[in-house]
């Protein structure tokens, strides 16, 4: 762990370097300026506007009128909103569990292949699907779930499980789970790459020592790999939470929140409120609530999930 004394010595050294005549480079600030300007205009300003307009009644066209906390009160009294949060809880829970565990298993299996060549090719095969646009993936899954001519129902009939065919996206009992299971077998993608990079960072000497000590595979996974990958788990947990809370495209494209409100999520309700019901102020209130929930969960995650680099 780096001591305060050494940090201060770095600062003194840094000051010394500066006092030796090293000038700051204004050109660097100038080159960064366009990026910051775009960031301010397209990222931060809309966010600030969302906060300001969430306290207004605004149809997106005429001037907004200030209504205080009315939008926020309505959000918590809206039965559609409550159903949306319930759906979000279930959906995010499923996708987090799948997103944290399955890519980890895939990364472990590939990392511990004996042949480096095999490792490389399996990595490539699992990463290639990332280049397919998300919308295409969703439409393909829409076809897979189609009750009349879809792949899933036809496959079930072919293997003699015709009695299990279903209206996957139209049945209230299966619609939400069908959306949550999109992406099967859930190995390819960013999560897999992050875990794999984490495993590559584990020192070979640790793994060799464990092997020499007679450490079995599962023991090594639970005693060495998982503790050393806590940072990756933490990151993917945060990203998974953020992704789940912002989920709009999947329900919008495949079910439009239906049947009924069974796949309605707050992100979709926000979109519908703004762009279909022309209630931008209300939609922004929903977005602020989602933002606060994201912040809260991120803080909890950062505070309670320790990694090996925390506290250094």
């Amino acid at each position, binding site marked *: 762990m780096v001591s305060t004394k050494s940090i201060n010595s770095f600062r003194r050294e840094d000051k010394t370097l500066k006092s030796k005549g090293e000038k700051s480079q204004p050109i660097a600030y100038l080159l960064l300026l366009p990026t*910051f300007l775009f960031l*301010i*205009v397209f990222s*931060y*300003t809309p966010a*600030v*506007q969302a906060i*300001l307009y969430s306290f207004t*009644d605004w*149809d*997106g*066209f*005429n*001037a*907004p009128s200030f209504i205080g906390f009315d939008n926020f009160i309505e959000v918590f009294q809206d039965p559609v909103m409550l159903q949306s949060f319930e759906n979000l809880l279930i959906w995010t829970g499923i996708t987090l569990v799948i997103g944290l565990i399955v890519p980890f298993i895939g990364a472990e299996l590939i990392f511990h292949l004996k042949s480096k060549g095999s490792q490389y090719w399996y990595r490539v095969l699992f990463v290639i699907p990332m280049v397919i646009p998300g919308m295409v993936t969703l439409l393909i899954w*829409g*076809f897979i779930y*189609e*009750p*009349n*001519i879809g792949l899933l129902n036809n496959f079930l009939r072919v293997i003699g499980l015709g009695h299990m065919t279903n*209206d996957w*996206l*139209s*049945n*209230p009992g299966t619609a939400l789970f069908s959306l949550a299971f999109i992406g099967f077998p859930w190995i390819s993608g960013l999560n897999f790459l992050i875990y794999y990079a984490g495993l590559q960072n584990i020192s070979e000497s640790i793994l060799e020592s464990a092997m020499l000590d007679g450490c079995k595979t599962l023991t090594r996974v639970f005693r060495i790999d998982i503790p050393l990958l806590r940072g990756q788990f933490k990151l993917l947990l945060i990203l998974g939470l953020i992704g789940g809370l912002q989920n709009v495209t999947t329900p919008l494209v*495949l*079910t*439009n*929140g*239906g*049947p*009924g*409100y*069974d796949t309605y999520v707050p992100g979709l309700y926000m979109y*519908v409120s703004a*762009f*279909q*019901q*022309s*209630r931008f102020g209300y939609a922004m209130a929903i977005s602020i609530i989602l933002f606060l929930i994201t912040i809260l969960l991120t803080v909890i995650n950062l505070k309670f999930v320790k990694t090996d680099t925390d506290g250094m």
Partner: protein
Amino acid sequence: MLSTARYENMIVHYFGKRGYRMKSKKCLKIGAAVLAAMMALSVGMTGCQKAENASSTTSASGSTASGGSASITYKGTINFYPQAYNPVAPTQDNPNPPTKFKEVAADYQKLHPDIKISFVANPPAGTDYETWLKTKAAGGQVPDLVWEQAPNANTSASGIWTDLVPFMNKANPYVEGNKQWIDLFPKAVINQIKDVSGKIYVIDADYVDTLIFYNKAMFQKAGITETPKTWEEMIEDCKKLKQANPGVAPMGIDMSTSNTVYSWFARVFNSNLYYKDIDKIDIDGSKGNSTLSKIVAVKKGIYGASDPRWCTEWFQVMKDFSQYWQPGYSTAPQGGIIMSFVNKKVAMYYDGTWANKSLKDDKAPDFGSFPVPQITANTCKGGNDSINTAGAAGGPYAAWQYAIPTKKADNSMTDEKLQAVVDFAMFTTTPENNEKVCNELGEFIPTIVGAKPPESLSGMAEAAQHELLALDGACNLSMPLQQSLTRELQQYLLGKKTLEQAVQACDQVTKKEVDQQIKQHPDWDIDKYLK
């Protein structure tokens, strides 16, 4: 408002007191300045919007409606989106697009060489269209003459569409002997499309109907020799079709929120069930079709959960009917329900008259069509044998509904341009042009006085001249309301809610929508109708 310098000093002081020392105080000052600038930008943009509102409101109310060819001084392009009549290039999905509007535009350009009519490429369809339009309006980029459903135009955010009444009272210079443009439109149509305060936002010049299309071969196989005339006969035919054609759903219904089938059934049933009380609903001569009639009917409780005719009765009919629908009816099928019919997955399906052309283009199996069968006293409680409401799901809500945006919704609109756009709209609504454009497509009938429909659709022409009996229970007040009601029906059909729960939920969302609409349109005077 604080100056930027004072604001940044506050930030520096705030963070400084809390022990945040940075290598360079300048960095903190820069950060504070950026935050202050963001706040100023946000507030400034709100102020600009207010100023814009004020100026454009003044401009809109200040424009004069002179109309007439001689006064057109505009030089430039008029952007026009004519929906189904759009003369686009042929594609695989649309191999035979219409062309007549291009001819009409060319004729107009000969008369006005300084004006060019440019057709907007097809925007998204279905519910995405309204999203597209609202986004365009927010950005001041609505095309100069654009398709919009009259009920939606009446309940849009105020200030998007130009009130056409001043222009309607002027003569159409392209129709000999015409004294007022409004005289070219059937009175029945005008009564249905005007808003609560009597404004007209849409130039409406065609008529549509809905039909049930059926597969002739499947009907023959099931031993059905005549198309059903009553609802009960149709249910019997569904049973026969189910037995004779295994694996094929008797009826294709797209009861998703991407479609408007809920509204069609609502109109067919409400018109029949409320027929005897039409006088209570029709308060302005529109036979209950106007936005005003609907809103007042909701406020008075005529349309509401307390009246079983509103939803309770016909929801039960739908529940029984849904057992014959194709699987997955609450989700929009890929390619649309029409493809299920073309691919012989359903024996019949419910669609608009526009499907005629699409079915031919998609090479559907040999098909015929029939109107929605008669609701009878046996169909549901209150069913009326004496009134046929099959046509209720149709009306002047087809492709020829064109609105003109205000300057706020269309940044390029000026008073000069507005005169030109109105003039072009007048030119298109001569009987000859209306007839030429509508009859080429063959899906809707022209309704301009003097225009003649094709023989095959002449039955509809008669309907267009009379007040349409199309009581919709207020579901057509807005697309979001219709979607909410569709969701409640879905939940009832799929067993997620009881009938009472679904109807109560419909009641709540309808009342909420009406209150929201009244709030958004302070110029509507509803109270005088509630006394």
